[in-house]
């Protein structure tokens, strides 16, 4: 696996991570992205439309995603976005970083619980 870039990983907000994760399932448009992000976060996060488009703009500016098509469906303008190779790499790195963090925190918690149970005994 490619070595993670700590700078880019640390600079990824939750909304950007969710957008990348939602696009990992395939190219889609804004409305569908909000639904996917909600699903991924188990209903915890509903991305506001303004935040979504701001995030999409910034991710596109850094070549993490790309605009695939622009069309009018039922009188409404729709833009479809897709993940680039760079975006895929960033998502993988960020996921690995967070997994590593979760593992480390879980280990600390396990140790703490074990120490407490010894004291209680």
């Amino acid at each position, binding site marked *: 696996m490619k070595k993670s870039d700590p700078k880019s990983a640390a600079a990824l907000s939750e909304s950007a991570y969710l957008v990348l994760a939602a696009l990992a399932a395939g190219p889609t448009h804004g409305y569908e992205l909000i639904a996917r992000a909600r699903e991924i976060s188990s209903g915890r996060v509903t991305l506001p*439309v303004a935040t979504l488009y701001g995030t999409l703009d910034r991710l596109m500016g850094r070549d993490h995603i790309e605009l695939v098509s622009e069309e009018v469906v039922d009188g409404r*303008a729709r833009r479809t976005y897709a993940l680039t190779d760079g975006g895929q790499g960033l998502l993988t790195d960020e996921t690995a970083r967070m997994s590593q963090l979760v593992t480390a925190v879980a280990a600390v918690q396990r140790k703490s619980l074990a120490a407490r149970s010894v004291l209680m005994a």
Partner: protein
Amino acid sequence: MSKVLKRAYQFLLLSYPTVTRTERGSVELDTLMEVSRPNRVLPRFGEARAIVVEGIRERVRRNGGTTVNEVMASGGTLGVLFSFSLQLWWVGMMLAKSSTMKADRNQAGTVFSAWGLIICALMIWWSLRPSRFTLLVWQLANVVGAIWMVRFVRDHAAGSNGLDTVLIGMFLIVSTLVFSSGIVLNCWSRMPKTARHRLGGKHAAVAILVPMWASTYGLKYLNGAFSGWVVIGLLLLSLIDPRILIGLSIALLTPAVAMVMVISTYGSGSLSTKLTFPGMCLGVMVLLWMRVRVLVRRTLASINQV
């Protein structure tokens, strides 16, 4: 019904810069309409707030070419120009041995406040459309303002009273503590976790409130009537761009400090006040400059996060 909602969204989208609205305004509007429930009349509060906040962030990002250092340097230049022309006037009057060389803080305050409003307008204009020309206009206006001011104050006699001196002295000591030693800031970290979380963003608050307080106190010292308006103006400006606030604060603070120095030096006051004031003012100015620069940089970095 949905027409009202659409208009409301269109109105909120005005917080975006024109370029952004042209680029993605229609797509965003259509998505907003798609996401909202059919019986919705007005936007949800959270959605409305997100649009306005994103619009402000976008404006800040679009002005990315203007660095904090540039803004501070411009604010400083203005302030120094203003203060310098003011000092020159009094030196000239002293050399001419005029009997009407004393400063009147009420008269001076009126002109100073008017000058503050000019700076506010130019600061917004310059920040939203930064160019050499607007900067030049800004500086020219500063010189004109300085001349205007000295014309108003030249024939009026006044001096600082004891209470003002004590208050300014206290302010200088407190702001020095806040900005240099970190003693005051460290007190917060010893507070219970929940209370600390509730007071989140203390750095941003210090970065915004202290220079604002300093500027407005300077204005209040000169003329209380305008200080309320200046507080409101500064708060609104800080919403648009933190760089406006910092440039404005410096542009206002420098001449305010200069006025205090002038009045304390040429007006009534003890010898110790005359000797200690200029040094203390300069020291605080340097500390403010160093501390606020770092804090504003951090704020901008968080704005530019992906």
